[in-house]
């Protein structure tokens, strides 16, 4: 029979130090509890408001929305069943958004790169920044009226329709898109500037120290880094463009259908007038002359869907950036 083996050498793991007593709500003062409750209430109230809008518009929209409405063109008529659908406003929204963002993004990114990377002379850079802030704070109706004054100049006659008397109409997709870009520009500019400023200085210096020029550094190192910022900014800007009414009513003519000017297929449309979902909702609502609240609800629901999709895209782009880093 074997002798019992010696007891194994084993030392138990040292016991963990007890966690310090956390500060619980019991230990708080009343003012802190009140502030805590207020924070919760504010958050919940915001959620409730959002939910109310989405649910209400969703119920109304689903009630009145049907494929026929989506894919038929609107026509003027006295009876509701003859006034058609919202195809043209949807197309108008898409075209106007594309024009606006296509103008805004290069301008805003170039301005941000100049302000952050060069910024000399400094007073000029500050002037550019505050100028863009002023644009951001300008009411859209003011931008619209200003745009009308500009695009009615004879210089810009080719961009819109010229009446037989020689007067320039000044309203077209190009005119509205150009002014819409001013609405989106501050958002893209701000996002691009924040992105550039968040890139640490030593990354630029690393590139310079390899014998690269400033331009090369901007193109290969900095711009790819701020892609997600720019995407977020432009998605926000697109949301603003999609949701804007004043510029559409003043500068796009807010005609029920897309009305091309001239025979050239795409250019004609760009020179012509049209409407967007916002102006359609306004026109069809009891406030406008259409008096078709059901169609207004349906169109508003589509508008909401577009904006929500854009927000979702913003979120997605932001996450992709995080996973890459």
């Amino acid at each position, binding site marked *: 029979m074997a002798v*019992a*083996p010696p007891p*194994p*050498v*084993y*030392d*138990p*793991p*040292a016991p963990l130090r007890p966690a310090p007593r956390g500060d619980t709500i019991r230990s708080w003062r009343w003012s802190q509890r009140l502030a805590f409750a207020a924070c919760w209430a504010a958050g919940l109230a915001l959620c409730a408001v959002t939910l109310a809008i989405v649910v209400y518009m969703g119920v109304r929209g689903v009630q009145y929305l049907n494929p026929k409405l989506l894919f038929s063109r609107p026509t003027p008529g006295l009876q509701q069943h003859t006034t058609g659908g919202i195809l043209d406003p949807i197309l108008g929204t898409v075209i106007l958004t594309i024009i606006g963002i296509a103008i805004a993004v290069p301008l805003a990114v170039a301005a941000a790169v100049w302000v952050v990377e060069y910024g000399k002379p400094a007073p000029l850079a500050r002037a550019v920044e505050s100028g863009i802030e002023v644009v951001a704070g300008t009411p859209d109706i003011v931008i619209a009226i200003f745009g009308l004054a500009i695009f009615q100049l004879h210089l810009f006659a080719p961009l819109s329709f010229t009446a037989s008397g020689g007067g320039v109409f000044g309203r077209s997709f190009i005119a509205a898109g150009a002014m819409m870009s001013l609405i989106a520009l501050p958002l893209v500019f701000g996002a691009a500037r924040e992105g550039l400023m968040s890139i*640490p200085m*030593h*990354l630029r*210096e*690393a*590139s*310079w*120290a*390899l*014998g*690269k*020029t400033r*331009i*090369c550094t901007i*193109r*290969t*190192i900095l711009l*790819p*880094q701020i892609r997600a910022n720019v995407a977020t900014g432009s998605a926000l800007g697109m949301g603003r463009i999609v949701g804007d009414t004043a510029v559409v009513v003043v500068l796009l003519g807010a005609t029920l259908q897309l009305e091309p000017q001239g025979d050239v297929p795409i250019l004609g449309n760009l020179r012509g007038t049209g409407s967007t979902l916002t102006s359609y909702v306004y026109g069809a609502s009891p406030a406008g002359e259409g008096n078709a609240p059901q169609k207004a609800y349906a169109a508003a629901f589509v508008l909401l869907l577009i904006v929500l999709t854009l927000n979702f895209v913003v979120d997605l782009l932001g996450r992709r950036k995080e996973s*890459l*880093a």
Partner: protein
Amino acid sequence: MTSRDRVADPFLDDAVPSLPPPRRRVRLDRSPVPVPETQGAPTARVRRRGPGGPERMRVEGLSVRYGDNLAVKDVSLSIHAGEALALIGPSGCGKTTLLRTLNRLTETTAGAGRGGRVLLDGVDVEQVELTALRRRIAMVFQQPNPFPMSIFDNVAYAIRVQNRKRPGRRELEPQVVDALRRAGLYDEVAGDLDRPALRLSGGQQQRLCIARAIATRPEVLLMDEPCSALDPRSTEVIEDLIGELRRELAVVIVTHNLAQAHRVGDKVAFMYLGDLVEWGDADQVFEAPRAQRTRDYVAGAFG
């Protein structure tokens, strides 16, 4: 495995099947812990190579100012191929400024001005085209700063001319592999050069930065506290690497770590408040300093 062995006893296996391994080894005897033998002097790891090669750079009466603040005052020294020059001194004494002046990186700072001359192979660096100069005088920074691209692209970016896409991957592969190999990184990343560089560990990132810097076969390598953000193990790897690199190029390294300066530096320059107080062989500066301020600093009296 040692802890597992102790538990793996035939009588005990069933009784305590899943005991966690002990946290620390327990010494049963109470005799005093033996002191580990010191392995020679702490400076012995990198062997000194004697006098360096030909003179590469010469700094003559260099002064640098930021606005009204004179950061470097009338500094003159020379940098030789085949040896490492360590710049030491307390914080804010102009070491980094001196280093950044060598490849004209101080010019990017607003309000910086420069007096005196910096010569590279007898030519004033002002007269060398800036991008060409920086390809000949490469730099590694304090913070490992690889670009957010793949490992391959990081090195290839340094080799390509500005932002051209050519030469393509096939032509560049030998050069990139060679640079990574010289930086001692290739064996660790050979499997996947397309991995994002930011996924590497801190020490690997710093070696990637070194690979990037030496990819264009520069004549001078400037290092601005290359190990201050790294752990001791990575620091040792990089110090060994510096010992290798200085065979083929001139290394200038700024460091706060005196032991490191002694280990890697063939020459040491001590700066204090913008002045070059003392400059000479490492052994001389550390063991027989001429100036009182150097003596105090090396002895740890201030800093």
